[in-house]
């Protein structure tokens, strides 16, 4: 597994991101709430650049009229069609097939696992060592 030192932590302002060309791929690194997350800079749906995604909160609603925000800034909202991905692991939350997924017994058990769609944006582990951002590919 190759390790690439791509930036100083100070190169990416909180709430911002930066794209790095690593082994022929564009990888975008986000700086959110003191943590760094790296993803392939490409939405798996139609290829939109995720560097332009909105960093949003996870908005959930257990029932109509009740709304909860969590994980503020950690969800990516694709700049084109609005598909949402968890920055931490690239897991999609918005998924056209979700209606089917929810109809399974697991959907009734509640919790994050049930809402995960089948699409996963490619993610890479990130380590912060001596204030450098290092991507493993």
């Amino acid at each position, binding site marked *: 597994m190759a390790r690439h030192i791509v930036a100083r932590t100070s190169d990416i302002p909180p709430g911002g991101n930066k794209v790095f060309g690593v082994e022929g791929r564009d990888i975008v690194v986000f700086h959110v709430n003191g943590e760094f997350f790296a993803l392939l800079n490409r939405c*798996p749906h*139609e*290829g939109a650049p995720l560097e332009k995604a909105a960093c949003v909160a996870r908005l959930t609603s257990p029932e109509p009229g009740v709304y909860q925000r969590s994980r503020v800034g950690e969800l990516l909202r694709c700049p084109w069609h609005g598909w949402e991905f968890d920055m931490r692991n690239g897991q999609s939350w918005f998924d056209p097939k979700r209606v089917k997924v929810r109809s399974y017994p697991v959907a009734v058990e509640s919790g994050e696992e049930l809402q995960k769609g089948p699409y996963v944006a*490619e993610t890479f582990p990130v380590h912060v060592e001596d204030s450098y951002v290092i991507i493993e590919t």
Partner: protein
Amino acid sequence: MSDVIDRPILAEQVAAQSRLRIIDCDVHPSIHAHSDIEQFMPKRWQQHLRTYGSHLRTPYIGTTPYPRSSPLIARRDAWPPTGGPPGSDLDFMRKQHLDPLDIEFGILQVLDLFIFSQQNLEFGAAIQRAINDWQLAFWSDRDPRLKASILAGQDDTEFAIAEIERCAKIGRYVQINVCPRANEPLGRRRYWPIYARAQELGLPLGIHVGGYGGHAPTGGGWPSYYVEEHQSNAHTMAAQLTSLVLEGVLERFPNLKIVFIEGGFGWIPSATWRMDRHFEAFRSEVPHLKRRPSEYVKEHFWFTTQPIDEPDEAKHLRSLIEWVGADRLLFSSDYPHWDFDDPRYAFKTPLTETERRKIFNSNARALYKL
């Protein structure tokens, strides 16, 4: 990672097939500021625009019938670095869209200022004229790939005909655009003079979703959410297709060509099957129809592809394309709006080389005489 969906990039596709240039039938230019179009308006209407602006047929102040998902319904990456709204900077449009996607021609569709829905018909006519002139001066003259449409608000037929005549003399427009949300269903006779001119001029009639018709966009009333409004675009288009066919417009104008823009095409088979079946029972009510409704649809209508339907199983999209017919589909991106379709990835089912050529290029080339 095995669960990552990866799709081939354009270079790989091109290597495997002959190079295919794209005709994009739905590109949205925007005015940078009102001052851009003021030069094409008499002082009287410049002043009106500044003082009063739009007076629309809408029950909700400050809302838009277009599907919001981001500010100005735009891709978040389409805001020009030079400032101004998405679609307002030609150089940036070239760099982001026309050049990298190898667009041979882009058909312009202007939505600014809701020109079709202005209650003050004289003001509406003034901004139609201004925007028609602006399309040439700011876009077609500067980039010959970009083709303009004659915008003609149909609710004042006289103004519409005058504007069609004026633009037809200039001779550089490829289409006549009317709105699907007019005061009455589009098949009604009050609109026929426009269809007569379109047929005589050999220009297709373009009908792009949206606008404020003053009527609720669904049979059930006004939607609560933009997602609901977005869904209703298909209902509105289906109602207009039905009206145009059943009122006898295509019987009266046998050479009229009609393009439904941004209405999708998933609803076409069901709508035409249903019309055919009902026609068998009701044909004595509409004796002016000489053929089954589906035959008029097959001969007179084209449909742009965006927003493309994405069924769970690719084979269903495949069937849909076969039912509607690859001859009737025109690729469209909707750039720079948020529900943009990228020509490289929009079709999530394989197309044959012949289908690709038709949908991405030759259907539009023949229709618009490009």
